[in-house]
């Protein structure tokens, strides 16, 4: 039987609320990408609009649910992953999206973040990484680079930053992707992939906070240098990058190495082919950790591995136990076990 679904347009997913991010904030572009991705997800997965739930914590990015015309829950700082988990377990048919900033997800919510990933609950986590606290006006975050000068680190931070990809893969994450706020097309493409993935999908979006951390990513987002400093990974394709598509990644010993094709004896055949589906996290971890200037920054879907999900396991277990139990209602329960008549 042919399933019914509506052909949505991005306009359908725009709420009537005034968007209140600073002009030029990277969040606008991400919203734009999401609103473009949702009709496509709906079409591919045959989802009606009312099936989407956007859950967030607190922060500039966490205002996101107000701007999408679906069900939304703007929670408390750091707890979005826990709230989203509850939503999904309560009703596994919902398509649940979490929006969090780097502070929300990795500082106050670090615990919930890694446990959501570990459980592999089928939610899509959009991690807006601006390496700063936006809403509270410019304090360093757990992704701010060592030495970053911010309002609360006037002499530079003395702490080592998290690398979200490493954290996700370390927590046995099955899906990790990275995008740039300015690259709406790539972000949209990744979001569709994330939605199609069963399990926790973490999409790190490098986002520019024009007010408190402007230019944090300009070294890789500037039009002039972008192609030489980032690599877009696509499953089954060679890991090539550069303005002239003449640079690539090879395996040298136990590390990745950037080479120029045709130089130093390296040919196209030596260049690695991206296998996002490989369960072995080794190369994914290396790809996720690549940093400029030694490496290009990896964008695209870095890891996409199938595994059972928490919500499916919960549902299956409940159905199994229900089927095999003699207890069918509370009266049965109350009268079970050792009872006696007086």
């Amino acid at each position, binding site marked *: 039987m042919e399933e019914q679904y509506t052909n949505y347009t991005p306009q359908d997913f725009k*709420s009537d*609320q005034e968007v209140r991010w600073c002009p030029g904030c990277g969040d606008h572009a991400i919203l734009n990408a999401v609103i473009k991705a949702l009709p496509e997800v709906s079409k591919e997965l045959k989802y*009606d*609009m*009312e*099936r989407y*739930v956007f*859950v967030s914590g*607190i922060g500039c990015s966490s205002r996101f*649910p*107000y701007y999408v*015309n*679906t*069900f*939304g*829950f*703007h*929670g*408390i700082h750091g*707890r979005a*992953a*826990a*709230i*989203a*988990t*509850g*939503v*999904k*377990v*309560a*009703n596994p*048919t*919902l398509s649940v999206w979490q929006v969090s900033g780097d502070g929300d997800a990795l500082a106050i919510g670090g*615990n*919930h973040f890694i*446990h959501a990933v570990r459980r592999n609950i089928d939610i899509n986590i959009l991690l807006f990484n601006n390496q700063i606290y936006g809403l509270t006006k410019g304090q360093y975050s757990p992704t701010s680079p060592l030495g970053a000068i911010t309002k609360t680190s006037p002499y530079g931070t003395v702490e080592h930053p998290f690398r979200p990809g490493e954290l996700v893969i370390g927590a046995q994450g099955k899906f990790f992707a990275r995008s740039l706020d300015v690259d709406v097309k790539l972000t949209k493409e990744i979001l569709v992939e994330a939605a199609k993935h069963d399990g926790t999908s973490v999409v790190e979006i490098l986002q520019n906070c024009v007010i408190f951390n402007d230019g944090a990513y300009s070294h890789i987002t500037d039009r002039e240098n972008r192609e030489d400093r980032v690599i877009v990974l696509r499953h089954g394709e060679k890991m090539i990058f550069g303005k002239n598509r003449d640079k690539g990644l090879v395996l040298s010993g136990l590390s990745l190495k950037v080479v120029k094709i045709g130089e130093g004896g390296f040919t196209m055949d030596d260049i690695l082919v991206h296998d996002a589906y490989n369960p072995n996290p080794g190369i994914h971890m290396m790809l996720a950790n690549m940093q400029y200037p030694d490496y290009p920054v990896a964008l695209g879907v870095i890891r996409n591995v199938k595994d059972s999900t928490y919500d499916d396991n*919960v549902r299956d*277990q*409940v159905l199994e*136990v*229900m089927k*095999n*139990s003699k*207890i*069918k*209602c*509370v*009266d049965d*329960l*109350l*009268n079970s*076990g*050792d*009872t*006696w*008549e*007086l």
Partner: protein
Amino acid sequence: MDKQKSVQELDEVVVRFSGDSGDGMQLTGTLFADASALFGNDVSTFPDYPSEIRAPQGTVGGVSGFQVHFGNRKVNTPGDYCDVLVAMNPAALKANAKWVKKGGIIIVDVDQFNEKGYQRAGYKTFDAETELNLQDYKLIFAPITSLTKESLKDSGLDNKSIVRSKNMFALGMVYYLFERNMNFTERFFEKKFAKKPEIVEANKKVLHDGYNYAANIQAIANKYEVKQAETLPKGRYRNISGNTATAWGLIAAAEKAGLPLFCGSYPITPATEILIELAKRKDLGVKTLQAEDEIAGICTAIGASFAGNFAVTTTSGPGLSLKSEALGLAVMTELPLVVVDVQRGGPSTGLPTKTEQSDLMQALWGRNGEAPMVVIAASTPSNCFDYAFMAGKIAMEHMTPVMLLTDGYIANGSEPWKIPSMKDYPEIKPPIVPEGTKDYMPYARDAERLARGWALPGKKDIEHRLGGLEKDFLKGTVSHDPINHQKMVDIRAEKVKRVQEYIPEQEVFGDKEGELLVVGWGGTYGHLYDAVNEMRKAGKSVSLCHFNYINPLPKNTGEIFSKFKKIVVCELNLGQFANYLRMNFPEYKYMQYNKVQGLPFTVVELVDKFNQILEGK
């Protein structure tokens, strides 16, 4: 039956089993309580165990006790003092001798009363009888350890397993004393050790040998008999602990509402058994999520509530502290949620295995902002079922978080319970918004309850956004308008107050006016009732007003207070409920009787206190 021994009939008896925390006293006590209940006695139990899983062996700090009170009529407390004490080692005797009635029976394992045993327990001499002044008691020195070894020497079991079953020898002795049938206990072994027939046989043998030993020695002069309780209503019974009853009451509420039950929780003593009990009930569709911490526990529950499950979270004091911020979120989003707090000794991690009533203020006000919440307290192990059910009903029908307070004493304690029928419980009708509702306003309210509608994700045309920021009065969108905020604060308070119209009027035990009104709440019910009952029998003008509904208070509360010359508020804290009443009804004067020792009241101390008050002291 042995003709030489006389059988003495008693109305009620208290037995306390005590030993090292590794001696299996909790199981021994539970088995005895169950056997007594099955025999037809009414029973009340009190497990009292140390918080360290393994305190140094043989020390007073490591003593674990389990008290069983059974009688031929309604039994309301586990009893102040015991008629029989079983002490498996010198430490247990030292810690518990003061709880034995003068003339009571004390059975000790004399094998443990050696130099090492005495030293570990911190005795000054090697003569417990003199040192503890036990001349007026019937002391039975039984070589329990060596007889157990002898009993099982051919069993093929290793020495450790053999010694471990000495608690069953002691239990056998007590079974003889009270002519208990051992079938039930034997069936328990068969079930529990189904895969280890040699252990089943060993336990049975030791139990019987203990029984026979008690029959053979002349030391136990009498057998005792406590007849079946005839005052209890006819019907089908089971034993139930407060935590199990709480879990089942929540499941019952979910069934009546026709919604799945979701529990997001994190283990903490003494609340953990609720989660454990719920986790077993997948057969009734219950979903339990053991979260990474309490904050995640309540937040998953809030998410589940948003998505349309009947959501609950369970915890104890320190866990409740962690949940505070999310409680405010539940108040703001006006979603149904039941939060169970099984109170224990505080502050901080305090006395984790001991009982107290000191979370009341936290339950009422432990949140930022004006964040009123319905607060209910259960008062007996079995009525945890009813109040958990009511908590669910109020949460879902009034769209509000509800805090259910129990405490370690009633949570761990158990009693026989006449099994109710679900058809006698009221319907639960949450205001679920129909799919396709046009112009749905998330914060529009029904006129009586002031509850907003519950619009579930996945349903057409009622998409909306909730969150912790202040809401517009109707649309529910974010609003920072000052007048709107005032209106919302007022209406959230009024909504909780309106619950008053849906709860029963407060009842009074005894005359409706008189000299002294004893006021209590929660788990102190049994002791307060027995104390007041005893005084009333002695012709004193005393009545009891025991609260289960705390916020809001029942409508007729002030009227009740106005009819008594004196009011004394009794609670296991420094006066939290007393202060709450002072705030609500400042026109009355409240005396206080408080105890904060990690222990329940005793009836004796309550009666003493009430007599002093009546005498104007």
